């Protein structure tokens, strides 16, 4: 489905306030110190509209950094299990994410439904509506157009807003989007016939995805990984800010006879990643872990899940303490 409407900035704020009053949890880009990041808002005045990119992606709304999978308590000869409260997940709206973030939920959903349907992820995703905003500016780290995306791409969004003169062109893309619009349809006016493309940032392709994928298919033993990864210091910043990185680690918050099992974000950059109990580590050097990161996103995921594990948001490169610029490495693979 696809329906076009127009909404002014004032009406947009009124609509968001209605959603907030209805009890929905609204997450939007807000100022956090010198950074812009997603946070739960109580007033529309908190929302930032003029940034290029938030520090983190919006993935934590469906895949939190730490999540209780279940709890347990020993009672004499029994163990009482507490299931996660997947039926009490709040209705959430992520507002103001960019198309690269909305598109990021496709690879995430593919991973969490690959061989096992992840109840918690699916429940959180089901209770989340994505209201994205097209990009009218970009920076040197952006490359969505090189990975099947674009500054006005609708993939993954329930509603996509494109800033046009004094307001927004609203594309209502899914039933969820329509339901959300109907929370106060009076805020939405008929489409004014704005040409969306005229308002989007122009972002030329930086590399050819097919060429990069072909090169990667035969690059497992290439010396390129060692050369590229020399300055990588092995932190998890790139993975944690990534909209599609889904690796997790299981931890136990145990206190005697009771405790909780937790799912926590993990990163292929860490030395403990894939380390076996025996001590053997299939990815024992930083160059192997860097290779894992690229191959996973650009080879394994397209092969197994028919989806590229990168949306070109550029966050990994912005977050990297030592400037491991992903785009630069992809361009060099392309050439």
């Amino acid at each position, binding site marked *: 489905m696809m329906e076009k409407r127009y909404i002014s900035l004032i009406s947009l704020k009124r609509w968001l306030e209605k959603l907030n009053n209805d009890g929905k949890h609204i997450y939007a880009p807000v100022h956090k110190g010198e950074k812009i990041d997603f946070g739960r808002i109580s007033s529309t005045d908190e929302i930032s509209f003029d940034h290029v990119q938030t520090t983190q992606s919006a993935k934590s709304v469906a895949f939190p*950094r730490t999540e209780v999978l279940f709890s347990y308590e020993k009672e004499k000869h029994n163990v009482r299990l507490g299931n996660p409260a997947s039926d009490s997940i709040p209705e959430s709206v992520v507002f103001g994410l960019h198309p690269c973030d909305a598109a990021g939920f496709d690879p995430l959903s593919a991973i969490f439904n690959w061989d096992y349907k992840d109840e918690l992820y699916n429940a959180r995703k089901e209770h989340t509506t994505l209201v994205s905003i097209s990009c009218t500016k970009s920076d040197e780290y952006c490359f969505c157009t090189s990975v099947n995306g674009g500054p006005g791409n609708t993939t993954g969004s329930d509603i996509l807003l494109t800033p046009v003169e004094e307001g927004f062109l609203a594309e209502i893309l899914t039933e969820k989007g329509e339901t959300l619009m109907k929370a106060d349809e009076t805020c939405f006016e008929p489409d004014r016939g704005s040409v969306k493309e005229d308002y989007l940032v122009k972002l030329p392709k930086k590399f050819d995805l097919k060429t990069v994928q072909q090169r990667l298919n035969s690059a497992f033993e290439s010396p390129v990984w060692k050369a590229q990864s020399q*300055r990588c*210091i092995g*932190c998890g910043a790139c993975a944690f800010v990534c909209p599609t990185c889904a690796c997790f680690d299981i931890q136990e*918050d145990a206190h005697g006879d009771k405790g909780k099992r937790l799912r926590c974000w993990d*990163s292929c950059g860490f030395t403990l990643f894939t380390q076996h109990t025996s001590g053997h580590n299939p990815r024992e050097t930083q160059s192997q872990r860097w290779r894992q990161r690229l191959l996973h996103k650009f080879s394994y995921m397209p092969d197994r899940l028919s989806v590229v594990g990168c949306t070109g948001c550029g966050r990994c490169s912005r*977050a990297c303490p*030592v*400037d491991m610029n992903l785009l630069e490495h992809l361009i060099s693979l392309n050439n």
Partner: protein
Amino acid sequence: MDELRKKATELLQSGDVQMVIGYEKGTKGPRPCFISVPEEAHKLIFDEQCTGNLAVYLTHKDLIAGQKVAITASYFALRSILRLFTENQLQADRLVVLTVSVDKQLIVFTAVDDIAAYLQSAPVPKREDDAALIARLEAISREERWAFWTEELSKCFKCYACRAACPMCYCNKCIVEENRPQWIQPWASTLANVEWHINRAMHMTGRCSDCGACGAACPLGLPIHLLTRRIVQEVQENFGIGANEAVQKDNVLSTFKPEDKENFIR
């Protein structure tokens, strides 16, 4: 800069070193680079923008791989190098340390003691960026400070960029990865994050070069380098030694002497 490139070329050509760890032009500012052939020495740069602490790479075993290396060290990296020598992590005959002084002179250190002497005479680089926040934190009450840090640290998602960027965090297994017993809760939550950052700061006591790499590395912009900076100040106040001296001494928190002023150890 020409002097530095000339020296790097010489060192690589003569075989005195097999790799030069330095800075090159990056996306927005300088970034680390590793030069193994003389033809690439022209990439090297060194100016006041080069603040990342390259000493972190000296303990990367896969990278160094037994080679003799040269390093272009900033003021604070020199402090870290001194500390790594104190902790027996470096061998003087396998390392050439270079720096460029404030008056743009290339300095090639021939002995560890020369690094210490240089640090005593060279001016400490100024970092004005944090002055306003430090003044604010010093002006508020203890309870307000606790609230500030709890709020800041609650945002941490434990990517450990602070640890990875620190030359002093060279442990094969970090305490946060120990699970028999589990000393620190390894997941991200307010309490678990506070545990991690207090531990990190305490482990740096008397060892920290005060380079600020931990705070600069944080993708969330948390001012965690102010914790270690404060500890440098505490070491000065409680042990009477500044950062340049502390890095050459035994660990202040785990070394006991008969003349220590505390009565509880007598």
